[in-house]
């Protein structure tokens, strides 16, 4: 009985958070900055959230591409189809791995940063100080981070996609000794820009919205203590990752029917 009660309470609490988060999302998304100072924050946050994540994305993409090339070569080798390696890597990355891995890396790096930064601002009274100066928290703190995440994630995904192909190309040429001409031709012939690359990038708009909303929500609602901020960062990473994967499943199912 207590087990059922526990599940019931968890479900109620989860639904309440979901409701609050939806209202929070509407509030943040509608707080469009009108002042120059707020607009400048968007550029600044895009640099912090997006540009400073580039090195992690590029490095990870090179390794993911390399691993895909090795695994692809093994699997395709069973069917004597190693000339399709380029297509195999590109389709895997563009349609699925690129958007999802970039989103997960982004959550780990920028999502947790957003939560800790906002949580610490709250903990050290910086948020109260801004309020006391009649500065809108939604417009000055929340919206710039929110929109920067939505702008950054598709751009980072493009980078991830490109460097995965580079990684796979390098491995297929120098390690697997495959014909790189065939590698590139199979990509050119079988990978569609609209159906494959754009479908993946389309998903990142949702992933960016999810990552930013959860990060900001837990940051601004973190309790006023160091463990509270740490807990909020952990929640951001865990919940964002799960919701992104769930959203990926839903979007992929829908896109496969539409496209």
């Amino acid at each position: 009985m207590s087990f059922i009660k526990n599940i019931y309470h968890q479900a109620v609490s989860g639904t309440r958070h979901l409701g609050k988060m939806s209202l929070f999302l509407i509030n943040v998304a509608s707080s469009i900055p009108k002042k120059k100072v707020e607009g400048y924050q968007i550029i600044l946050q895009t640099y912090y959230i997006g540009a400073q994540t580039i090195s992690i994305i590029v490095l990870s993409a090179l390794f993911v591409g390399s691993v895909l090339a090795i695994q692809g070569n093994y699997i395709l080798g069973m069917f004597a189809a190693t000339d399709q390696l380029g297509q195999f890597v590109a389709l895997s990355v563009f349609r699925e791995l690129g958007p999802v891995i970039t989103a997960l890396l982004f959550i780990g790096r920028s999502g947790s940063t957003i939560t800790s930064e906002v949580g610490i601002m709250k903990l050290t009274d910086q948020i109260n100080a801004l309020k006391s100066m009649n500065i809108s928290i939604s417009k000055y703190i929340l919206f710039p981070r929110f929109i920067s995440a939505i702008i950054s994630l598709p751009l980072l995904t493009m980078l991830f996609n490109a460097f995965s192909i580079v990684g796979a190309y390098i491995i297929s040429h120098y390690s697997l000794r495959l014909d790189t001409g065939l590698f590139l031709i199979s990509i050119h012939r079988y990978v569609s820009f609209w159906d494959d690359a754009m479908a993946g990038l389309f998903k990142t708009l949702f992933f960016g919205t999810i990552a930013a909303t959860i990060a900001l929500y837990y940051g601004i609602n973190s309790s006023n203590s160091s463990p509270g901020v740490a807990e909020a960062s952990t929640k951001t990473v865990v919940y964002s990752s799960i919701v992104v994967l769930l959203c990926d499943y839903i979007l992929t199912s829908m896109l496969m029917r539409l496209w």
Partner: protein
Amino acid sequence: MNTPLIQAKNLHIYHDSQCIFRNIDITIEANKTTAFMGPSGVGKSSLLQVLSGQKKQRSGKILHTNKANTQPLKTGILFQNNALLLHLTVFENVALPIRYHFQLPEELVHELVMMKLHAVNLAHACELYPEQLSGGMSRRAAIARSIALDPNIIFYDEPFAGQDPINAESIAKLIKKMNTYLDATSIIITHEVHLTLQLADYIYIFDKQRIASQGKPKEVLQDDNAFVRSFLSPNINNRSVNN
């Protein structure tokens, strides 16, 4: 009593479900320095939050009246931990409220900010970040930011906390200077008795959800209340006080 700037009547203040103040009346006179004193945890900061509009009282009325009686009261707040924005320099911290609320040419913003920083003797540190400042410098930078918009009333939450005696003394002088030059009203929350007796025009001493004593420094010093006497005792004798 002169013109009251803030009048609070029958205030009941709660923190979560715990009652902090029960049915207290506070009057803040214009262009004077009023100090709220009392032991730690008595709820002075909560009272400041209520009076500055950061927090709502459970019941009671707070009336704000400024000179012209037409514009809303402009407030500046000095937070206990300074609350400077860590990603901005001292200059940017002070410039932020000015840039946010007014569309002024950058030269004018620079001039205004440097004027505030000169007032707190911090012009030389304008390019430093909060993490590069000493405790006293951070406090002065926070004071400069709190006066950036030329407020009618400035709330100081524990301005002397964590400061050495020389720094505390210079901050007390700075508060006095701000009152004079800005024609502002100050509310100070502190348990630094010695400096407060010199600085304040009116003092409220709180104990257990109520006002234990109130009056001019001399009147408070002559209070017979046992709690007030024990709270002020190390400072009662041989100290200069503000009449």
